[in-house]
Every structure is written in structure tokens, then in C-alpha cells.
């Protein structure tokens, strides 16, 4: 079959018209978007350039103190208790010094620091490796520095768990809505205002974005203020007048594995002033 120039041009013209017209018709049919609707932050929402937390370990005295912070977080966010350390889900958890700050320990350090539990949580790094490896962009860094996890998008590949140097991410190996061996629900009491997760997704601390949006501090911070003011301090690292900045500039703080370069946003005040007194050497 041969085609001459005139026929070819005619055919091309008709096809182009049909294409353009078809798109227009398709758009017309598709067009049910709304006008004049908009999304805004709430009037009481707390804003920052970079949210950060200071954990003052001197304020944590009894195991009860840790437990209250952990319970507050885990009950607010429907974190299941799989009662098996292998597939444990943790948003905030205690750990010994040598595990929290590997490489910083020495055989001669004081007994109290050595044995003390440190409260660990997601560091909301400025340069988060978990975000870099996520293949679906399920985990991402918000404008306010919070490393957030979109459960709708998580495919459970666990790259982020391998990438996170802090063990801050947990995988739902089982259905968190299920029951344990004794027939007890894995989530003791569901908080009806917050979703659960499903089997096969990774979860972690979110710095309580849902609470910040309505002007509340994170659940752990709120509870810690009940038993000792200043145990957990939350604020904007970018604001020189914020409480976290004041503490960080006044006291010696350390961060977990800062040598890796992820720039964690959680700072630890170790020991407070009690240990800083050096006996006079004569």
C-alpha cells in the first residue's frame, strides 16, 4: 500500500484533531474537582523550623519515670505489645549507656551512668538515611524537620530499618490487631482517635505530629513534665531563644552516633551537674 503526500497530511491532521479533542472531552468528563476549597494548618498548630528534643537523664530517677513516658506514647499511638523482644514494636524505649552510645563507654566510668537506662527514640535526623533508602517515599522529612512515615505508602521492604543506625524503626511482623497466645489483645486499649497499623508496615516515633497540629506537646514530653520539669524538653532547634537551644548552649550534651553524620535532633544531657564536681587534687 502506498500513500501520497496529500493523503498523509490529511490523515495526520485528522488524527491530531481527534487526539486534542479526545483529551478535552476526557478532561471535561474527569473534571469533578472542587473550586475554592483549601487546606490549612490549624489555628493552634505549633510550628518550627526544626523540632528537637533534649533528654535530661538526671531527671529520670526511677524505672517508673521511664515507664510513664513509654506508656504515654505507646497507649496514645496504639503501639502493640508483641511480648517478644525479637519482633518488639517500640517508639520510645530504654537502653543502657553502652548500647545507646557505643564507643563512648569506658571501663572506668561511674557505675551509675554505666547501669542507667537512657530513653531512646527516633532521632529525627537532619540527614536521615531512612528517607534516602525508602523506595516508595513512604518515609520523608517534613519542612519542620520531623521524619515522618506515611503508613499508606509503606510496602514493608524494611530498607529503612537496615539504614537507620539507631534501631528506631520496628516492623509489624504480626497483625497488631490480633491477640497474643493468652487471647489478650496485642493493643491493650485502643485509642479511638488514632489509627493502628497493619501487618507488614514499618512504624516509629513521629514526634507526635498529630498533637503538635492542635497545639499540644508530644505525649512523652507532657507526661515527663508531670514528674519532673525538664526531663524531656521539646522545641525549635532553629530558634536561638527556644528552651532546647538554651539548654544545649549552656550544658554539655551528646547525641547518639553523631560521628556518622546524620545530625540527630535528640540531645542528651548526661548526669547533670552532680557528676561534674571534680575532687581537688593536692
Amino acid at each position, binding site marked *: 500500500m502506498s500513500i501520497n503526500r496529500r493523503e498523509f497530511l490529511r490523515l495526520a491532521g485528522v488524527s491530531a484533531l481527534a487526539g486534542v479533542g479526545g483529551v478535552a472531552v476526557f478532561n471535561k468528563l474527569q473534571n469533578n474537582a*472542587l473550586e475554592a476549597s483549601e487546606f490549612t494548618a490549624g489555628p493552634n498548630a505549633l510550628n518550627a523550623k526544626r523540632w528537637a528534643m533534649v533528654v535530661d537523664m538526671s531527671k529520670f530517677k526511677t524505672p517508673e519515670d521511664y515507664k510513664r513516658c513509654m506508656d504515654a506514647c505507646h497507649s496514645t499511638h496504639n503501639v502493640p505489645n508483641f511480648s517478644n523482644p525479637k519482633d518488639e514494636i517500640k517508639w520510645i524505649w530504654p537502653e543502657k549507656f553502652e548500647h545507646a552510645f557505643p564507643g563512648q563507654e569506658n571501663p572506668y566510668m561511674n557505675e551509675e551512668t554505666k547501669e542507667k537506662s537512657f530513653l531512646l527514640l527516633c532521632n529525627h535526623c537532619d540527614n536521615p538515611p531512612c528517607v534516602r533508602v525508602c523506595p516508595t517515599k513512604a518515609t520523608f522529612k517534613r519542612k519542620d524537620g520531623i521524619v515522618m512515615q506515611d503508613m499508606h505508602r509503606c510496602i514493608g521492604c524494611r530498607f529503612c530499618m537496615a539504614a537507620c543506625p539507631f534501631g528506631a524503626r520496628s516492623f509489624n511482623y504480626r497483625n497488631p490487631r490480633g491477640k497474643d497466645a493468652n487471647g489478650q489483645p496485642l493493643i491493650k486499649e485502643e485509642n479511638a482517635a488514632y489509627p493502628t497499623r497493619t501487618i507488614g508496615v514499618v512504624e516509629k516515633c513521629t514526634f507526635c505530629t498529630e498533637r503538635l497540629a492542635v497545639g499540644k506537646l508530644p505525649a512523652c514530653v507532657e507526661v515527663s513534665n508531670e514528674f519532673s520539669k525538664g526531663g524531656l524538653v521539646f522545641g525549635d532547634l532553629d530558634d536561638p531563644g527556644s528552651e532546647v537551644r538554651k539548654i544545649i548552649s549552656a550544658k554539655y550534651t551528646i547525641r547518639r552516633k553523631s560521628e556518622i553524620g546524620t545530625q540527630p535532633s535528640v540531645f542528651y544531657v548526661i548526669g547533670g551537674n552532680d557528676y561534674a564536681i571534680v575532687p581537688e587534687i593536692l
Partner: protein
Amino acid sequence: MYDSGKIIVGLLIFIALVTFPFYNNIGKVNAKPELKLDTPEIQKLPEQERKCVESKEFMRGGHMQLLDDWRDSVVRDGSRIYTSSAHKTFNMSLQNECMRCHSNKKDFCDKCHNYMAVKPYCWDCHIAPKENKS
């Protein structure tokens, strides 16, 4: 054609079987799902305020798109307040806002979704309101 008799009979039987569901259902109309909008929460509202976020027609056709936009806005941008085209504000939350009024998931969400045989996975994570009927 060899064996034309067998082939044609076989074909006819095949066509009859494949089209069975169609001619079997001809003339029978499935009851349309009737959604219940009379939850106690809705009835408590004054008459003028018994309106959804957007118009009924839009919600019917576009609620999934709306919820998808809400999700992206809340999770990704942290913007949680929705100003509707009627200039009313809503907290963008399926679990806390939509279901506050539509507390009858079984007679509202499920009815239509079952009829249309769609299985959205909202409730794998989001907690549905407690209902008496099971």
C-alpha cells in the same frame, strides 16, 4: 469442515454456559443500596447543619478523591484543616471527623462498597466507630 456437528454443538453449549449469568439475571433488578443517614449524631445536628463536607453529588462521586487529597495534605504537609467550597472548616480525619457523623460504617460505607464489590483498606488501620449491630 470435519466434525462440524460436534463442533457447532460444542460451541453452542460453550456460549450458553458463558452467557448464563447474563440471561439468568435479565429482568431482575438488584436492590440499590440505601444508605442510612439517620445516625444519632446526625439527628442531633440542627436541620441546616445536616450537610456533608461538600455537596451530596460531589461526595457520592468523589469522596475517594477527597479522602486521598486529605490524606496527602495531613500526612505530607501537616495541613489538617479543610475549608470547604461553602467556607466551612473541617478537621481532615476519616476516623475522627467523617465517622463522627457517619457512625454507622456498616450501613454507610460497607453497604455501597459491598454492592460495588470494592474493598478499600481504610479499616485495616483506621478504627471504625463502635456499632451495636454486628
